Each structure stands twice: as structure tokens, then as C-alpha cells.
């Protein structure tokens, strides 16, 4: 806006462009990796490019994703620019351009598309508000229980809807009743904070809860990770975290008010289309949970609501424009980046060059989850997952004794969850930003609770991984 921020924008962009170029210009031999190929060198530059662009955001994060795909196609693919081509062992392995392009429609992307369709139909036919109304009613008028009710409902919705949309919906229910709190009643803070916290946590619950889950799903290959299986550890973890956050909120922001009444008006729509939406919603979830009965995996099931809603006109052309394509493309870029690391052999090459053997497996896990958590506090969760998860996935079995704690795939899972727990600042996640924008809470309060949830959550993540390893969850 003002000149100073204009200036910082310019500086940001310069750093973001110059750094990867410098990486590209320094001789290969300077890297602490034996026999680095030309392509691998380029991938390192691309990774640095992606990291800096996602951290500094000189362009929107989804644009960075697309830039990654474009750069891969132009400089790393089998259909690249002539001057960028080469041959021989020294040059390295190029990527298939078809494979790069197919990241835009990879199964996890389509899984998310299915989730978007369900969420869009639900909001369009006010299913979200009506369920919230009915459920909230059951929690009475004691502020303590109403708070818990709000959190449960919010996290439940955010398992299927985007965390942002859920937060927006719940805050719009909450804000009108905030004035009933007497001045100085800390419970106001508790109520507002409860929404983004529950939304962020709720995203952990299902594969479609939040985009980092989709990226994780991409790297949990081989092992049979189904929708139901994810929920079988995701939902209990969400419940534990919810109870923890609820207790923390009650301790730090006790309510003085004796009763609180949240009133949402409305009735369930009973038009044929609305009923079709309800049925499709329930059937899709059932199909996701019981894949072992019908044989269709989560990705295939996700396409069913897309087909149903489009053909019945429940989602029309105008609604299609409102699909968050930016979120889908953001994830695609992450997948493309992971693909580059994997297909060019760089990931393997790097892992081989770094003496991971000397690290304790527990240190590796703790480090990965902590880095994920810290980064997610300052930048987009999805971008964080885009950068960290492909690296973790490559760790493979190089760390001695890693298999004792579940192998790299379990680390990916744990880190993904840790990423969703990054919520100590208004900029951490869009739900945090929305809650902060109500102007009713202090950043301090948000940070206090956010940091505690993050740290205690990290411990819970480790415990969860130990349990999962113990029961041989991923095999």
C-alpha cells in the first residue's frame, strides 16, 4: 500500500528470483553431494525457488505452484527447451511431461474436488447451518457446554468442508450473540478462539479435511491408506485435541456469564433437490467408509457426488466458477515438486549423501514434526506440506531403526498432523485470520493458546505414532 511496503515487495521478489539463479550458477562440485547431475542441480534450484516463493509470497502461493509445473515442463521434462536438453550419465534423468501435467488431475486432487462438491452443495442448500442449529440446541445454555458444542460442530464440519468456510459460517453464527457477554468477561475470547482452533483441528479428521492430508496421502503409497483407515486414527486424535483445547480455553478464559443462548433460525429444506443433496452426502460418506465392501477406493467414490450434482443441476455453471481452483492447483504444484525430487533421483541421492544413519530415529521424527509445526505457524499449511513431505517420504529406510517407529510413511503422517496444529498467529491459517479480524480478541491470547496446543499436540502426535507403530497400523 504505502511506499515502504511497495519497497519490501520489490526486495522480496528480487531475493526470490536471484537466490535460485545463484544456486543454478554455482558449480555442481560445490554441493556436498557426490556426482550431482545437471538435472538434479536444476531440481535443487527449483526446490529453493519453491521454498522462497512460498515463504516470502512475492506472488500468490497457487501461482508459485503453477510456476513450479511450468519450470519443470520447460527445463526438466522430456519435452523441454532445446538448450536445456542434454545427454549422458552426467546430465541425469529427465521427467515425463505427461506425468508432470497429470499432477493437475491426480487422484488426490479429484478426491478434493469431490469434497468441494459435497461442501458446496451442503452450503447451497443450507445443510451446514441447519445441522449446526439442531446440534447446538442439544448443548443447552451453560457456557461451558455450549463452547464444547461449538467446537464439536465446527470440527465436524471442517472434516468435510474447508476450514475457512467452516470458520466463516460458525463465526457468523457466533458474532451476533457476543454482545451478551458483559464487558471484561474473558469467555468472549474463549468462544471466538474456539472456532478457528476447532476448525484447524477438525481438518485432521479425514483425508479431505485439509489440503496437507491430500499431499500426505500421495506419499503413503504401497500401504493401504483408505478413507476409513484415516478416520480411524484421525477422529480419535481430533477428539483428544478438542478436549485438550476445550480445557485450556476454560482454564484461561473462564466464563462469568451463567447462561448463553445461541439462536440460529431456519428449517431443513425439503425440496427434492435438497433431499437429493442429503442422500448423496450420506451415501458418499458411507461409500468412503466401507470401501472394503464395494471395492471402490476413496478417489473413485469422490467422483460420484461430482457426477450426481452436475447432472441434476444442484451445482451449476455459476457454482463451478466458485470452486477453489487455487487450492487444487496449490496442491498440484506440491505434488509436482515431490515428483521432481523422486523421478530425477535427487531425493535418493541427497538421502544417501547425508549421514542419517548417525541420527536417532526419534530425533528425526521430532525434528520433522517440529519443523513442520514451526513453518506452518508462519506460512500456508499446504505450502509447508508441499515442501517437507516429499523430503520425508524419501527418507525411506535410510535412517537406521526408522522402521521401529513406523518408517518414513508414518513420519509423513505425523508431520502432516503437526502441520495442522500450527495455529498460534493470525497469519498461521485463514481461520485464525478471520477470528482475529473480528476485532474481539488479542493476538496474545491466540498465541498463548496456540503455542500450548502446538506443543502438547506435538507430544500427542509422537504418542499416536508409537501407538500406530505398535499396532502395525500401516501394514
Amino acid at each position, binding site marked *: *500500500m*504505502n*511506499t*515502504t511496503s511497495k519497497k519490501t515487495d520489490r526486495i522480496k521478489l528480487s531475493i526470490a528470483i536471484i537466490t535460485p539463479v545463484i544456486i543454478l550458477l554455482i558449480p555442481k562440485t560445490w554441493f556436498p553431494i557426490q556426482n550431482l547431475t545437471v538435472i538434479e542441480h536444476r531440481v535443487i534450484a527449483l526446490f529453493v525457488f519453491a521454498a522462497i516463493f512460498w515463504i516470502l509470497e512475492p506472488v500468490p502461493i497457487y501461482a508459485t505452484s503453477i510456476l513450479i509445473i511450468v519450470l519443470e515442463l520447460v527445463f526438466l521434462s522430456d519435452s523441454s527447451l532445446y538448450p536445456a536438453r542434454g545427454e549422458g550419465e552426467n546430465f541425469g534423468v529427465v521427467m515425463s511431461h505427461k506425468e508432470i501435467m497429470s499432477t493437475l488431475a491426480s487422484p488426490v486432487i479429484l478426491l478434493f474436488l469431490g469434497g468441494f462438491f459435497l461442501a458446496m452443495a451442503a452450503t447451497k442448500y443450507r445443510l451446514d447451518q441447519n445441522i449446526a442449529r439442531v446440534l447446538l440446541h442439544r448443548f443447552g445454555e451453560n457456557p461451558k457446554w455450549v463452547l464444547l458444542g461449538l467446537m464439536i460442530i465446527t470440527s465436524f464440519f471442517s472434516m468435510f468442508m474447508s476450514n475457512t468456510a467452516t470458520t466463516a459460517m460458525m463465526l457468523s453464527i457466533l458474532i451476533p450473540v457476543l454482545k451478551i457477554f458483559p464487558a471484561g468477561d474473558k469467555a468472549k475470547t474463549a468462544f471466538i478462539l474456539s472456532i478457528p482452533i476447532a476448525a484447524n483441528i477438525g481438518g485432521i479428521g479425514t483425508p479431505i479435511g485439509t489440503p496437507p492430508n491430500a499431499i500426505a496421502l500421495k506419499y503413503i503409497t504401497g500401504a493401504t491408506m483408505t478413507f476409513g483407515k484415516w478416520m480411524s486414527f484421525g477422529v480419535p486424535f481430533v477428539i483428544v485435541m478438542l478436549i485438550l483445547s476445550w480445557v485450556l480455553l476454560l482454564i484461561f478464559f473462564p466464563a462469568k456469564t451463567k447462561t448463553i443462548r445461541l439462536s440460529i433460525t431456519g428449517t431443513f429444506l425439503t425440496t427434492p433437490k435438497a433431499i437429493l443433496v442429503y442422500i448423496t452426502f450420506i451415501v458418499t460418506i458411507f461409500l468412503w467408509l466401507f470401501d472394503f465392501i464395494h471395492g471402490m477406493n476413496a478417489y473413485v467414490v469422490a467422483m460420484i457426488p461430482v457426477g450426481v450434482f452436475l447432472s441434476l443441476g444442484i451445482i451449476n455453471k455459476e457454482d463451478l466458477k466458485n470452486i477453489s481452483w487455487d487450492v487444487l492447483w496449490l496442491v498440484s504444484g506440491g505434488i509436482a515438486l515431490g515428483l521432481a525430487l523422486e523421478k530425477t533421483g535427487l531425493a535418493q541421492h541427497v538421502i544417501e549423501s547425508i549421514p542419517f544413519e548417525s541420527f536417532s530415529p526419534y530425533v528425526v521424527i521430532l525434528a520433522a514434526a517440529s519443523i513442520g509445526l514451526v513453518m506452518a505457524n508462519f506460512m500456508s499449511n499446504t505450502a509447508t506440506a508441499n515442501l517437507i513431505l516429499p523430503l520425508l517420504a524419501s527418507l525411506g529406510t535410510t535412517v537406521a531403526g526408522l522402521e521401529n517407529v513406523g518408517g518414513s510413511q508414518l513420519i509423513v503422517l505425523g508431520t502432516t498432523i503437526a502441520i495442522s496444529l500450527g495455529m498460534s498467529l493470525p497469519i498461521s491459517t485463514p481461520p485464525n485470520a478471520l477470528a482475529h479480524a473480528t476485532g474481539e480478541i488479542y493476538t496474545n491470547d491466540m498465541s498463548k493458546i496456540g503455542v500450548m496446543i502446538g506443543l502438547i499436540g506435538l507430544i500427542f502426535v509422537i504418542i499416536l505414532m508409537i501407538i500406530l507403530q505398535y499396532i502395525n497400523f500401516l501394514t
Partner: protein
Amino acid sequence: MSIESNKGIARLKAVYFSDPTKFVSLKKGEVLLREDEHNEKLYLILDGEMAGYIKDASGEDFEVFRSEKDMFVGVYSFFSEDQKSFLTVRAEADTKVAYIEQHQKDSDPNFAAHFFPIIVHEIYLRQLLAQTMSRERQAAVKKLYETEKMATLGQLAAGIAHELNNAIGVLDRNTEWLANSLRDYLKSKELQHLFATNLEEGQTLSSASIRKKSRSFEEKYGVSPKLAKQLAKTSLSEVQLDSLVKKGLRDFEIIKLVTDAGIVLHDMKIAASHAAHVVRSVRELGNAQKTILVETSIHQTIREALTLTKNLVQDVNVVIHADTEGVLLANPGDFVQVWINLIKNACESMKLAQVNEPTLIFRISCDVAFYTVSITDNGTGIAAEIMDKIFQPSFTTKVNGLSFGLGLGLSIVKKIIGSYRGSIAVTSKPGETSFLVTLPKK
């Protein structure tokens, strides 16, 4: 009366109304016929004037007709069955009449033929008179109604004016109190001066020049647009600003506050005085009220009016030629209002014509008995067809009527000048429109 009936009358006079024994003379006010009394005679007025009355419901006489020389009286009772006069006929001046009696009508076989056209004509005349009187009556009623309406409006205006003046008074007094307290509160001389300047003059820069300045400051000082605009809005000189920026804008917060406070209070004073003027104008509409007259300089009132219309004349080249201060006994506010109206009209006209160098020339001169003030602009001029309407109260060229701070236009101007026994005239051609105000010295 047509020649035909004149001839007829002359013949009838000769045949029927020439017997001197049947002449009657009446003094003014004498009654010839009385309502409901028997009458067997038909009278012809030879000279003078008579009028017929009936008593209305309240017993008042109500004029029904008026007859002059060569017209008939007693027509109805003479020709009717019951031979009763339906009204009272009275001489309105010394009058001489001749009459015929009932038996003459019966004995003369040509009577009907002789009288019929004449009588019809007589009835026609009376009808005409009745119509005219009815029209006049309606006009009189309407005028009465208008007068009453204006009187009511006047009372209403006076009432509202009283209430509003109280409110405006509070705002005006308290603004001044606040301004004084604030000025005394300010410690440093510089701040006091800054405050006083802004309080006195308000924001003297146009929004366009503020924008221009603020753009240049953005470049020059490398500050945000918001800060640049705030700097541009102050009355500080470039030198002062340079040193302020050099010091890292440490003192700018207080400077901005003092500047803003000065401008805001200035605007409040202006708004209060505008409101007071509008209230006055409305009250003037109702009834002229007596005010205390003081020795007033016309020149001074013109300067005041220019201050009040500062934002209008900022792009206008204003020239005042004053041969005299033009001192007379008056209420200065009256003249300020006159000039404001004239200035406003002139400026709008020049703005409309998008004149290159809008110029407004005031000339105050005097002779033995009169002061003359002329105000000349180089705007579009006034179209000939509306020239004679511009002083009418309802006249406006503004589509949307009143605008803030404007009085009620030229009608008020004329009325105010009239109350000083002065006159206002206008001459106009495109590029030169002059209003000429002439005021007696005493």
C-alpha cells in the same frame, strides 16, 4: 352598449319617458325601491347611478347590480305577476329618473314590441355585471388566502427561526469557546500561530491542489500517501516542511492535530453562520422584522461576504474599486447577505460558462445623495426571456432548489435593498453581467 340599442333607447325615451310630471330626482343614498315592497313602475335612469342590493343571511347589504344612465330599474317587478321588488335600489349618486306606469303597458298594443329587445339587453348587461363581480370576488378571496398563507408561513418561520437560532447559537458560542480555550492551552508561539491561522482561514487549498502537493511530497519525502496528504493539508511552507521531515517528522503529530483542530473549528463557525443566514432568509420571507441599525461600511460587508464565499471565489479574480467606504445606517448582515447572493450567482454563472479567467469586479461610488455598488462578472449572462423574472420569489435556474448556504435568491436581495429604500437593476450580455445597487445615503 350597441348603437342599435342606443337608437332604441332614444326612441323609447321620446315616446314613453318624456313626461316631466313623471320625472323623479334622488339625492345620493336615497332609496327608490325597497326589497319585497310593491312596485308598479319601470324607471329609466336619465342621469346618475343606481345600485341594487339584497340583504344576505347576516343582514348585510349585498350588491347585485349597478345601473347607469340609459339603463332600467324595476324591470323585474314591473313585468312580473306579483309586482314585488326583489331588492332595494338606492341612488349611488344624485340621480334623475323617469318612469312609466303599469296601465301604459296594458293600454299600448306596441308596448311589448318596443320594450322587448331593450329589456333583454338590460338583462344581458346585468348578467355581465354579475359575472365580472364574481370573478373579482374570487380573485379577492384568493389574494386573501395567499396573504393568510404567507402570514402563517411567517409565523411558522419565526417560530422555527427562534428554535434554530437557539440551537445555532449554542453551536456558535461553544465553537468559539472551544477555539479560545484550545488556543490558550497551546504552549508554543508557533503552535498558537498555526492554530490561529487555520482557525481564521480554514482549508485554503482546493482538493485538486492538495492532491498535487501530496503526490509531489510522496516523491520528495518518500512518505506514504496518507502522510503525504496530511502534510499537504497543513498550512506550513515548504521550508518548514523540509525541516520537519529532516527532523524525522517528530513533531508532526501535534502539528497535524492543531491544524485539523483549527480547520474543523473554522468550518464549524462557517457552518453556524451559514445556518444563521438561511434562518434569516426564511424569516425575511414571512415578515420584515425590525432590527437595530448601526453605522455600516458597504466596503466592509463586501469583504465579509467574500470571506464567507471563499471556496467559491478561490479561482476567481476579484477586484474591488472603492471610491468610498460607503457608510450608512444599516444592519450589516443584510448587506452581507445581499452580496453573498450576488457573488454566488455570478460564480455559478461563470463556472457554468467555464470562463477562462473568471473575474468579479465590485465598484463602490457615491454622489450627493446615493451610493452605487456595481457587481460585474464575465459569465454566461442572463437570457433576455428570463430577465424580468429573476427577481420573483419563485424563480430559480437551479434544478434542485436551495443549496447549502444560499439565501433565497434575488427576491430576497430586492426585498432587503427595498427596505433601505434602494433599488437594484441588472444589465446583461454574454461575458458581462452587472447588478447595480443604488442606496440612499440617509
